[in-house]
């Protein structure tokens, strides 16, 4: 029996990251609304992600309440479905074949808890074959009450030859001190399809976060991922896996701004399964206050393929810590893998240079941090690029206290 197995799994700490006592958190009854109007001050919640216009969102989940009306008609014109997963499982036969296929409920206590208690909230996005969706699909997952656990199980399927951009913001509004967010994500990128996924996290000092993600990229497909966290957390641990078929490629970029006393254990793992597949894993991490950052990356080549890891860290506080853990493994002659990792401080020469141009010390540091965390956002539409750039600007100011 799966459930009895899961009850055993749920008792054991996960292999990586601080252990969380799940019994400390409250879980409400999952509810689904078709309108976004049921939550007051929605604008205040989403503006923390730099997006004040809630009408841009296709799916919003506040605690255990899912809302999904906005943009439905616009996206419907392209045959795109954006609905709560629970509803998808009731209405769409193909949805059942896509859940818990890439992420096993038995993976660890968090996946087991989501399977047993999550009520299959989260979003389900389906993009039909040969469809280029011209507008980004926004979603927002928020915890608005203290000591809540939020489960979100997200499934995205971009069918053959299609292209879509999904932007997800996960956050707590100001005033929420404690909470637990567990997100299970199963993404399918069809043959020759492309999925660009950007996730922005803004939590609080007492919030634990445990995303579990697997992405399956079919031959000729492409998965581009951006992940940014710019808030304190109690702890965050995630190590998403991307499996690449032949002639497919992925690029994953993470920007981690550690602050407070948070433990940030963030990584990216890629399995180069098909011939001519390629992967690039980039992480830029900045540690301030007493934060601890573990930047993991792991590329495994099982085919004639290429992979590169770049992990750069900037330690800005004597009480903080950065640990870079890059790993590359080849099981196939002909595969070319490389990695580059460096942890440093702001270069005195660069600081001095900018100060000679009239920048005050803090301004100069902020410019240099902004330069350090600069990432190639050319794969994103201009509106999202602008929003992420605003967040990176905020990170650069925050870490030097201006």
């Amino acid at each position, binding site marked *: 029996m799966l459930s009895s197995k899961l009850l055993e799994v749920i008792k054991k700490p996960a292999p990586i990251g601080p252990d969380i006592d799940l019994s400390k958190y409250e879980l409400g009854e999952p509810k689904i609304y078709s309108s976004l109007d049921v939550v007051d001050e929605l604008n205040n919640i989403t503006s923390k992600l730099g997006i004040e216009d809630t009408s841009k969102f296709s799916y919003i989940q506040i605690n255990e309440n899912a809302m999904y009306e906005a943009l439905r008609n616009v996206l419907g014109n392209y045959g795109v479905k954006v609905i709560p997963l629970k509803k998808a499982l009731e209405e769409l036969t193909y949805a059942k074949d896509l859940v818990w296929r890439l992420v096993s409920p038995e993976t660890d206590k968090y996946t087991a808890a989501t399977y047993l208690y999550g009520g299959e909230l989260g979003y389900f996005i389906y993009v039909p074959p040969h469809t280029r969706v011209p507008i980004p699909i926004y979603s927002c997952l928020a915890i608005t009450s203290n000591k809540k656990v939020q489960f979100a199980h997200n499934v995205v399927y971009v069918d053959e030859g299609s292209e879509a951009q999904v932007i997800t913001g996960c956050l707590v509004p100001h005033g929420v001190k404690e909470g637990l967010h567990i997100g299970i994500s199963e993404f399918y990128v069809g043959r020759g399809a492309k999925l660009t996924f950007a996730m922005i996290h803004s939590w609080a000092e007492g919030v634990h976060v445990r995303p579990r993600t697997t992405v399956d990229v079919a031959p000729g497909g492409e998965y581009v991922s951006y992940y940014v966290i710019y808030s304190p957390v109690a702890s965050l641990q995630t190590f998403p896996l991307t499996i690449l078929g032949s002639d497919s490629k992925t690029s994953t970029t993470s920007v981690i701004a550690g602050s407070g006393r948070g433990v940030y254990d963030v990584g990216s793992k890629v399995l180069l399964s098909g011939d001519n597949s390629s992967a690039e894993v980039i992480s830029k991490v900045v540690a301030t206050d007493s934060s601890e950052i573990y930047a993991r990356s792991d590329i495994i080549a099982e085919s004639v393929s290429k992979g590169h890891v770049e992990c750069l860290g900037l330690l800005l506080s004597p009480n903080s810590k950065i640990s870079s853990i890059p790993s590359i493994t080849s099981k196939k002659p002909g595969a070319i893998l490389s990695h580059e990792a460096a942890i440093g401080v702001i*270069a*005195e*020469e*660069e600081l*001095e*240079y*900018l*100060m*000679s*141009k*009239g*920048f*005050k*010390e803090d*301004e*100069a540091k902020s*410019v*240099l941090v*902004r*330069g*350090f*965390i*600069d990432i190639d956002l050319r794969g994103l539409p201009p509106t999202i690029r602008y929003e992420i750039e605003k967040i990176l600007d905020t990170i650069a100011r925050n870490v030097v206290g201006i």
Partner: protein
Amino acid sequence: MLKVTNLEVCVGGKKIVKGVNLSVGDNELHVIIGPNGSGKSTLLSALMGLPRVKICSGSILFNDVDITYTPPYERAKLGIALAHQNPPSIRGVKFSEVVKNMIKHCGCSDFTIMSKMLRVDDLMSRDLFVGFSGGERKRAELYLVMLQNPKLALLDEPDSGVDVESLNIIANAINSLVRRGSSIILVTHSGSILSKLERVDRVHLMFDGSIVYSGIADEIIPLVFKYGFRGIVEKIKKS
């Protein structure tokens, strides 16, 4: 405008500049020449207040204000600008971003004319000095100095490592700075730019950390080219 008195400057505990006295008036162009390692760049760094050099003794007055220990960004605000000899390559920081910030700080209004004069428009989208050629580096650095609309521009080897075309562009920009009313201290060891300048008010020969001779360009430059730095210093000592 600038009065430097008995200035001694140390780098890493070693005295590099030894008792320099120097006065620069409004809208004057002074040239400091000397061999490599004679302390010219260290002197300019000290005038800009860069933290890597330490003033051991002496004083620097700028428009009668003692700036001997004033931080560099305050000196920049007062109107002093330094064109670094080797500005650092800074990844991720766009040249345009620094330009934008400096225009905001300095309120420079004719930045588009200056960018055309120094031919830096094509460099705007690139990371600061990353992969710049010798000429691009010098022109971009001089552009940043011009954006500051400086009362006193300190130009450290603006003519080294550049081709003839860039040298002409740089000389034009320096002449323009003078016409706009800036005072200039230009450091060079090759002297290749001097013939292209419209005016040089004073030339100082720096050797082993000290200014050993000050005079007009026509007096000293031909002798330097004839006898070399060491030769001319020996002649000065004998006389």
